[in-house]
Structure formats: C-alpha cells, structure tokens
C-alpha cells in the first residue's frame, strides 16, 4: 500500500515539475509560484495535505508529502488530479486556451495519457 502510494506521488511530482517549468516559461517564476499558492489555498480545506506541496524559485516538490505519507492521507490521487485541473483551467484564462492546451499536451506525453 505504502509503496504504491509513494509511486503515485513520485509520478505526480514529475508531472507537477513539468507543469511548473512549462508555466514558468510563459508566466515567469514569480507568477507561477503565485498561481501554485492560489490553487493550494483553494484546495486546502478539502485536502489539507496539499499544503505540504512546496514551491519556490527552484520549482515544485512533493518531498514533504512523500515523507508524510505514513500519516495516511486519503484521496491523494484525487487531490493531485484536482490540483492539476484547477491549475490548467486558470492557466487557460491567463495565457489563452491554445497555450494552456500545449502545456496540457506536454503533460499528457510525460504522463502517458492519463489526462
């Protein structure tokens, strides 16, 4: 159970890192982190574990989520999915649907068509 969950988190971390760096190309690091902060804030009531997602000038990291996985957070996969969906939907408004779609496609490629 624990190993499976960790694998899932690692996969999502890869995906989030890709999404973060692609966004930063268009938005810049400051705005990208502000966007991450916004989505974390929006989801934090429903999924407290999202507050363990760390971000900064170097990018985004799930290290604290991984180290806390033993606490038995529920719905981690659902949390990541909602985070990404919300993030991309805001991105689409800020950058336009075409660019957001490009970023989404890159994520799909990286993640083997899960989205």
């Amino acid at each position: 159970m624990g190993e499976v969950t960790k694998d899932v988190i690692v996969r999502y971390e890869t995906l989030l890192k890709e999404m973060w760096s692609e966004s930063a190309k268009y938005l810049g690091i400051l705005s990208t982190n502000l966007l991450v902060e916004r989505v974390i804030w929006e989801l934090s009531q429903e999924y407290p574990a999202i507050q363990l997602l760390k971000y900064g000038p170097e990018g985004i990291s799930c290290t604290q989520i991984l180290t806390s996985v033993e606490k038995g957070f529920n719905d981690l996969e659902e949390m990541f999915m909602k985070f990404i969906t919300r993030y991309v939907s805001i991105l689409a408004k800020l950058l336009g649907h075409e660019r957001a779609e490009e970023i989404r496609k890159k994520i799909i490629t990286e993640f083997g068509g899960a989205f």
Partner: protein
Amino acid sequence: MVRLVTGIKNLDHILEGGIPAYSINIVSGAPGSGKTIFVQNIIFNCARQGMKTLYLTTISESQFKMVRNLENFRFFQDELLGDKIVYDDLGMILRTQGASQALQYLGDLIKKYLPNIVVIDSIKVIRDLFPDEKNFRMFLFDLAATLSVWEITSFLIGEYEEQELTRLSEFAIADGIFHLYGQEEKRFQKRYMRILKMRGTSYQQGEHLFQINSNGIEVYPRMKPEGEELHYEIKHGRKKFGIPELDEMLGGGLREGTITLVSGATGSGKTLLALKFLIEGAYRGEQGVFVSFEESAGQLQSTASQLGWDISKFLHSGQLDIRFISPVELDVDKHAFEIMEMIKEKNVERFVIDSISSFENSVSDLKKYKDYLWAIGQLLRKQHVTSIFTSLNENPFSSLIVSKSQISLIADNIIFLRYVEDRAGIRKVLGILKARGSNHDKDLREYEITSSGINILGKLEKPDMLR
C-alpha cells in the same frame, strides 16, 4: 477574449467590446479630471452584473467623502456596498508595516472576498511612500503578478501629469492606460479621454470627449474620416425638390446618395430650400431628418405654414424629424457623434444640416471640424442618404465664396443663392455650380419666395448685374 464590459456609454464601443479581462489599467489625470468617478461608474455597472470589487484607498478619510459624492449619481446603488463593492484601506499598512506586509494584506483580502476587480486609489500616493524607485518597481511587479494570477482586472488611479506617462515604471507594467484631462475650448469646459495603451485589443485612438452628468460618465468617441478609400454603390435614382424648374435644372433632381451644398447670403432662402427638399421626400414616403442649429422646430413649422406647407402631419407621424440644437449649446464633439448615431439608427433617406457655418463657428480646431464633416459625409454616402448642407455666404452679393475652409470639396453638388442689384432694387438669383453626374443647367435663374412657396423664374438677362 474575455472582456470586462464597462457599461459606460460608448466606451465599450471604443474598446471594441470592453477592457480585456485580468488586465492592469492605470487611470491617470490631474485632480478633478474625473478619474474616481470614471472607475466608480465602471465598478457599479459591473456590480450590477454580479461582479465583486475590492476598492482600496490610501487615505482613509477620502473613502467617506467619495461615497458621499457618489450618492448624486444614478449608477450609485447603496445596497451594492459591502456585498459587491468592498472598501478597504491599504495606505495605513503600507505606511506602518511596509510593502511586503501590504502585499500580504492584499493577498489576504483577495482570498477573503475573491474580487473580480481591484481598484487602488491612489497608486501615486503609494509611489510616494517608497524611498526609491527600485523598491517601488519591485512592489509593482509583485502587485501585478498577484492581481493577474487571481484573474483580477485592476484599476490603479493616479494623479499623473501627461509628461510622466512615458517615463514612470507603473506605465510599463500597465496593460491599459486611460488618461483624463480637461481644457477650455471656446465657451465650454471640455473633458477628454485618451487611451494611450491597451494590450490585447485594438481600440479607437485619439481624443474622445466625455461628460460627467447625473448618469455618470458618457463618452463621445472621436470622429474621423475613414482612412481607406470609400467604396459605395452609386445609385442612379433622383431625389426631387418638388420645384419643377429647379429639378429640371438639376437634370431631374439630386442624384441619390449625394451631398449638396446650398450656399447663400442671409435671408436668401437656404433653409426653406432645404426644408422643401425634405417635405417633398415626406410626400413620397421617405424619412427625412433636419438638423437645425439656427431655428427651432416651432419656428420652422411656422415659416413653412406661411409658404403653404403643412408639415405638422409629417412631424406627428415621425416621417419628418426636426432636431434643433441651440448654437449656444452646440458642442461639435458631442453633437457630431449624435448626428452620426441618428443617421445609423433611422432609415433616413433625406438629411439636412442647417447650417454647417454654425457648426464651424463652435469649433476651435478647424482640422477637427473638417474631420467631423468628412466623417458625416462619408457615412451619409455609405448609407445612400441624399443630403443638403447649407452654408452662409457672408458677402450677399458675391457668389465666389461658396464656403470657408474648402468644405465645398465634400459636396457633389453646389447650389448658390445670391442677391443682385437691379437699379434701385434687389433681386435673388440661383445657380448650379456643380451637379456630379448630371448635365445641369448653367444659367442663372431668378427666383422668388412667396406665400405659395419657392418659384424659379426666368434666366438672368443682365449679366452686368453680377459684380
């Protein structure tokens, strides 16, 4: 593109649909230029559409005065305050705790209220709180990023002079810049707005008149002739005056969709000739509009009845519309736009401006006057409206001056009315200088205005009477 519809009269038209959503807009101008009312008008309009605004002042006292002053405007709605429009103060925290705390506070307010619009009034005061340009620039950058990421359309109000607009850092981060200013022009205190920048959309450039009245802000877009060559279908129909001899002189009447300049001295009958043209149209079932800057509808109706023309039925049915604009009130920036709108809205077939001389006299900028007249002319041609512009010739015995400012160039047809001396008397003669596309009569014809109307008489037989 998602846009924020301002709801301000004609502003969304200038912006081709509204302000791009999530943009940062600076509203600049000297104190009293109307900046705050402009933004307040927008946020109240947006509040009625369900949008929420966070309005951040920088001097706490100003909020009370501001709300009190707004109560006089129709756009103001008490019940929107606190729900859709939330006022707060950013100045105090900036002064006491610094920029980063102020941004943190702004972030907290955004999370609390989730506004669609944020207003900072004034950003210039915030600038003055920073010890140096570098720190202010960093604050601005963070502010801009925060507002964008939260999908907020923002208005930063500031008392900036025009010369500051290009060199200060806040104008670099702005997506849109509205600059408001006023100037004395002839007898009016005029207010103008220029959109200096608007990323992500095209917009009408140049100086737009705006007014502040009980409705709030009303904008009258700058009128200019279209840059591209005007293409329009040439109609072959004729529009008659209903004066058989004159129609004959013109080869059957005025060509449909053309502009005719009727130039003449005072009392020569320009207004009557133009009015007769519309009455003839009304009898034929055509819609006519008479824009008068000299005589009221009542005066025109009375004059017409003295000539045996009953226009009351046409006025009553709306077939004939007389719009009187007092020369004292005439403001070309506003009225030229309204005339254009009227032509577009109504299915006008015959149209008169009496006179373009009054129009000209109210304009301080002759170039603007020509632009307006050309723009109106282009629209009339495009809409195939057959039009008459009357023009006062200040020398009653000269036919050589058709109009000042080379406005005669706009005309397809020119009819002049003048006086000639005959022994101890004065007679009136009419001639056609040009009639585009027509083999017009080149003779000078005497005419008279009697209780039975306008009668064209014989040829002028003594050319030596012309001086």
